[in-house]
């Protein structure tokens, strides 16, 4: 069970949230110039990091707002929570294999 600190509501139970996957994926600026491989990379390819991952969550059963979380995917420790549009936090480097 994760306790997720929503930047608007404070610490709440995992069941109140929905997951949005990797954060900071930018939609291609010139979509008509992309090759199939570049589209595949944008749509499907993900780092799936073992270690600290910047990811999006939404507080579905609370304030219903989206925000970003820096979470370690091995230990599940949440290092930082920040609002959409804010700068990426500094997070410890991990090198699990």
């Amino acid at each position, binding site marked *: 069970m*994760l306790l997720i600190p929503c930047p608007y509501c404070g610490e709440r139970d995992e069941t109140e949230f*929905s*997951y949005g*996957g990797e954060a900071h994926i930018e939609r291609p600026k010139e979509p008509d110039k992309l090759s*199939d491989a570049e589209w595949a990379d944008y*749509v499907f390819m993900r780092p*799936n990091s073992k270690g600290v991952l910047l990811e999006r969550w939404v507080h579905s059963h609370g304030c219903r707002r989206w925000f970003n979380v820096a979470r370690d*995917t091995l230990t*599940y420790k949440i290092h930082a929570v920040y609002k959409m549009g804010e700068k990426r936090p500094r997070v410890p480097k991990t090198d*699990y294999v």
Partner: protein
Amino acid sequence: MTARYSIFSLLRNALSYHENWPAAWRSPEPKASYDVVIVGGGGHGLATAYYLAKEHKITNVAVLERGWLGGGNTGRNTTIVRSNYLWDESAALYEHALKLWETMSQELNYNVMFSQRGVLNLAHNQHDLRELSRRVNANRLNDVDSELLDARQVKEFCPIIDLRANGRYPVLGATLQRRGGTARHDAVAWGYARAADALGVDIIQECPVTGFRISNGRIQAVETGKGAIEAKKVALCVAGHTSVLAELAGFRLPIHSVPLQALVSEPVKPVIDCVVMSNAIHAYVSQSDKGELVIGAGTDKFIGYGQRGSLPVTEETLGAVCELFPMFRRMRMMRQWGGTVDTCPDASPIVSKTPVEGLYVNGGWGTGGFKSTPGSGWVYAHTIAEDRPHPLNEAFDMNRFVTGYLIDEHGAAAVAH
């Protein structure tokens, strides 16, 4: 070393109180180089090694395992075997695997306790029923045995299920694959390990892979906890960690690794003699030979390598199980655990060559890897030996995410991805 197991060897060893059984496989130190290095000593990796040696006569092979054999997802699944997948490509692949299951114990001279007790997939509403009848029809066109049962037939096949119409999850019908069932998951890894070892394959445990040496786009060697090992070909077969190793080799995959959990109850007398699965409510139940109920749950919604499942998922699954089988309400659960499953966006696996020459990838089996173990090893061995896919796994190329030729098996894969 590789004496045959039989009733006579059992009797002979009984005389010495079973203290003199030979080791089932050697534990050699790695050689400086191999023709093929397989990374990952789970069921899929060991099956690959076995079929490389047996079908393709490539025996200068090492299987590297970071922990112990079958200690990952091979020993963490709910042991269900079936092949009732929707699309032609998947049906062919999983049905090939099911046929190999049927002869596995004899072929490996190792009892994998394969029990074709029948697998039910429940329909709880009209949509489920339509979806499942479509799948039954597709299965029959592909020569996969599959039947559609109505509610009364479900009750006959599995009498302990609660079919009172006022239940929270009414059962309107189910599909039944009679050739489906369960197998002893550890035995599959051990059986393949013993048979591969007998053919000359080196199985090296406690040997994590930490990097790859690649030059001119071709694989040269793997870096391991026991030093560098040169290899002409390297085959990844690491389930949940596929993306991690792909990153070390310099390419990206469309895989999400999420925890999938299971539980077993205290052992009780035989009460359920088939496998019951429900896609809609994420509950799978069968009973092991020891008498424990083996219960499979859904995946966590977030990426996680922690090999443990969240409590809300456990709660949801047990709630559903108690609704379907009210007699289980007072049973106690003994153990709960999780495995890291590698899910693809289309719920189908990747068995493929990679952008690196001589490096192959087998992963993305997600929540359905166990049932495919023999088939996966068989087609992967062919892909490695011939340097091109077998017709059975041609469609499961990693390039399908570029061409758009996805094989959407979310319905048949059962657990929500």
